[in-house]
């Protein structure tokens, strides 16, 4: 008999609002039952109630977050009304988005033991379980490493290990791979699938990067405005508004069943590939988006020999780089390859040990900060750092004032990026995507010639990314240069003309998107892996075959 691991009956969640106001429920009438040993992928747009659903599984909602939960949540027979999250720790393991924020101790081994210590397990048991878990997650060689010195993928695996030592029956993961580079994400997903297959543990994952997890999922739970639909992946993906490129390709080509992975798409796409070979169409450029401009674009930023050292560590080493008008460039590479440091150095607000940066005729480092941002703007990785006013309206007014622009410029820009954010909202209450939009608008108010963005796609859903791609295109279309760092190959395939790859502080590859991303499997987008022939996105495919049919 297969048991039910998680059972939600008529669950509605409502957070407390200001006095006298009864806010809309975040979840309404959710009925969901998850069987033991299933790997369930929870998808949904930002703010749809995914995190609330996940929090409800171990009682953090409402015990920790406050608010009002009606209906019942049962995990292996324990009702979260009677059990607090701490009393469910031996049953449900929860790993948050930012593993570093959840670490209590200093080293890997102590972190693995922390949960067991709290549960009062015997020392001999703890010793054995720590060793098992170190092996299970492939982190045995890191056992006495300080947690802060680990890479993102390692930290995420330690975080998973630290809840696995309590031998939970259910593992809940909130965006486990969002912040990771492709290699780190693969390590983490490999560890998760091993847990599912070896221990038959029930796993619930929420993830924006659906393309990374979809192929492993037994079931999709789609959260739309607080309501939940669930079903097998191939069924859910037929109608889902959130779909990775392989699924969109499958829908376009009318494949049944829909492909869930590159492998599926490769097998289903034999006919398409054959057709491509037969016609031997010119391999590139395929997309109307990527048609290079005939006129010679002017260079807006030229950097030579930029070097940044932190003590003995060389973060950026002799980087030569030029950014041209009308071009969107993407800077890719592992976590810790020096991408952020390079952006800050180019902008002039970060440290530079050696080298020269010119924006037009000026060195941004020699300009005052307020003049500098009119030549070269940067949206940092945590955009919230730039916000200090208490409403969106005040932030916009402040930005107009700082840039010496017409009042209302920033507000108009914000409405063009993401319309409908009320003026009186508090910036901290905005969703990740809205906050990014606000900071982008603030930086665009100064109308800089060069715009740099550090990991703008983090935490954005597919729609958010599509909007961002469009905005960046538009900025570049006005004769500006854009450089962004990202791990998201699909976004790069959609949005960038040119890709630079950084490793160990040096730029190791630089060229047109199609040439660079298809050269390495780690950076290739799904469509390129499935079809090849210089096609990167579903839009490319449509365009190519559209031309053929016409």
């Amino acid at each position, binding site marked *: 008999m297969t048991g039910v691991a998680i059972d939600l009956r008529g669950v509605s969640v409502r957070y407390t609002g200001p006095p006298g106001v009864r806010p809309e429920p975040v979840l309404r009438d959710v009925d969901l039952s998850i069987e033991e040993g299933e790997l369930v992928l929870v998808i949904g747009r930002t703010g749809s109630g995914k995190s609330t659903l996940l929090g409800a599984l171990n009682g953090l909602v409402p015990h920790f977050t406050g608010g009002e939960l009606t209906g019942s949540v049962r995990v292996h027979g324990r009702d979260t009304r009677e059990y607090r999250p701490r009393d469910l720790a031996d049953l449900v393991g929860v790993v948050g988005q930012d593993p570093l*924020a*959840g670490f209590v101790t200093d080293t890997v081994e*102590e972190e693995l033991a922390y949960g067991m210590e709290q549960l009062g397990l015997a020392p001999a048991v703890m010793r054995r379980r*720590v060793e098992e878990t170190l092996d299970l997650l492939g982190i045995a060689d890191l056992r006495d*490493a300080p947690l802060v010195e680990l890479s993102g993928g390692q930290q995420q695996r330690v975080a998973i290990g630290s809840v696995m030592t309590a031998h939970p029956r259910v593992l809940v993961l909130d965006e486990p791979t969002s912040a990771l580079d492709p290699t780190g994400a693969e390590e983490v997903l490999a560890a998760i699938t091993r847990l599912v297959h070896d221990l038959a543990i029930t796993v619930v994952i929420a993830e924006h990067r659906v393309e990374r997890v979809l192929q492993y999922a037994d079931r999709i739970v789609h959260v739309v405005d607080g309501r939940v639909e669930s079903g097998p992946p191939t069924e859910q993906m037929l109608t889902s508004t959130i779909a990775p490129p392989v699924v969109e390709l499958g829908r376009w080509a009318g494949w049944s069943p829909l492909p869930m992975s590159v492998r599926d798409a490769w097998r289903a796409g034999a006919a398409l590939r054959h057709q491509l070979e037969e016609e031997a169409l010119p391999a590139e450029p395929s997309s109307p988006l990527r048609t290079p401009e005939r006129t010679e674009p002017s260079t807006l930023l030229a950097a030579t020999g930029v070097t940044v050292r932190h003590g003995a560590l060389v973060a950026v080493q002799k980087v030569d780089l030029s950014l041209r008008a009308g071009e969107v460039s993407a800077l890719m590479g592992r976590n810790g390859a020096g991408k952020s440091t390079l952006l800050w150095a180019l902008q002039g607000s970060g440290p530079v040990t050696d080298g020269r940066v010119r924006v037009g005729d000026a060195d941004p480092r020699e300009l005052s900060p*307020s003049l500098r941002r009119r030549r070269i703007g940067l949206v940092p990785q945590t955009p919230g*750092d*730039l916000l200090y006013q208490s409403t969106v309206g005040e932030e916009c007014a402040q930005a107009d004032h*700082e840039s010496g622009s017409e009042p209302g410029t920033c507000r108009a820009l914000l409405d063009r990026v993401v319309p409908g954010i009320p003026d009186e909202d508090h910036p901290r209450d905005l969703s990740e995507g809205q906050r990014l939009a606000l900071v982008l608008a603030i930086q665009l108010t100064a109308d800089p010639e060069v715009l740099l963005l550090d990991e703008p796609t983090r935490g954005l859903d597919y729609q958010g990314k599509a909007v961002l791609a469009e905005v960046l295109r538009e900025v570049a279309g006005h004769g500006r240069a854009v450089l962004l760092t990202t791990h998201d190959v699909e976004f790069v395939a959609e949005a960038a003309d040119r890709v630079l790859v950084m490793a160990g502080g040096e730029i190791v590859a630089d060229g047109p998107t199609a040439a660079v991303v298809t050269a390495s499997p780690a950076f290739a987008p799904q469509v390129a892996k499935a079809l090849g022939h210089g096609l990167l996105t579903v839009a490319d495919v449509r365009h190519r075959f559209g031309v053929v049919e016409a």
Partner: protein
Amino acid sequence: MAAPIPRALHPLAWWGWAVGLAVAASMTTNPLLLGLILGVIWFVVVARRTDAPWARAFRLYVILGLVVIGFRVLWHVLVGFKWGTIVILPLPEIALPEWAAGINLLGTVYLEGWLAALLLGLQLATLIIAIGGANALANPKRLLRSLPNALNEVGTAVVVAVSVAPQLAESVQRVLRARLLRGDAERGLRAVPRVALPVLQDTLDRSLLLAAAMESRGYGHRPPAEPGGRARRTSWLTGFLTLSGLLAVAFGMYGVLDPTRSRTPDKAWLPILTVVVGLAAAFAGMAIGGRQVRVTTYRPDPWRLPETVTVLTGVAAAAGMMISRADTPLLLVMPLQPIAAPGLPVAATLGILLAALPAFVTPPPPTGRIR
């Protein structure tokens, strides 16, 4: 004899050793003895520290010690009482109004008074460096883990505070840098909210994340079916015993340390009794409270011979100083009237030298594995 297997010494052993040296330092202004104590601390720290972040902080304590000496001397020159016969810095004295009588603003600096100030600064610096030594040799977080169970929650609060502090510094740095991106180079009071607000919000967010993580990992987990009434009575008793016990210890210590105590020898036992009873009450409270918390320790640090030896050498340093104070009290201070070379009391010197032993008798610290 085979070389001892590398392992971390019990953190309490290092703290006991350091407190012994600190106690010794607090009893003397003899520059030779203070120098010897500093040398011993330095020697042991260099021999037995790891390259963990907390160990690297030893330098900061040394710098803090130097700053303390500098301040002590500066204050002496600015407002201290200047005495002595050998003029080293003739400065005009600034007359102060009647109500500030007793404070000499500037004025001629004499060698004797200046030396006295310098040595008092050195004494304080030695205390600070002794604590810094303990900090460098023993992970403060591991020390908290050896606390009795009843203090589990206090320990956790300290751990959280300790981990949030560096994050706070990192936040401030990030926000300061981000302000440049908005072209905001404003300084002074008006800039404070612009930095403080994002930093505070960031810190709050992180603390909430940490709290949520701890909650879902079972922090504060109690065995089920504890009748509510009994639990409340127990926690009341714990609080009462611990608090009254600690108060009794505090009052008793005043009595023990009171220099006029020797004048009433017939009641000399009273403060000591108060301390003993107070300690007993406090420990009873902790024991009862500790039974409530079912927390176990993963790989507890063992207490073996080297730990005992280490603490004993610290005790030896303090004891040697006490013996010298009883025998030859004049040798413990720097002779300033007239200035002469300081002497070297035998017991104190031997005690301090013994405290260098842990550099040899303790197992070496584990080295990080090559990754």
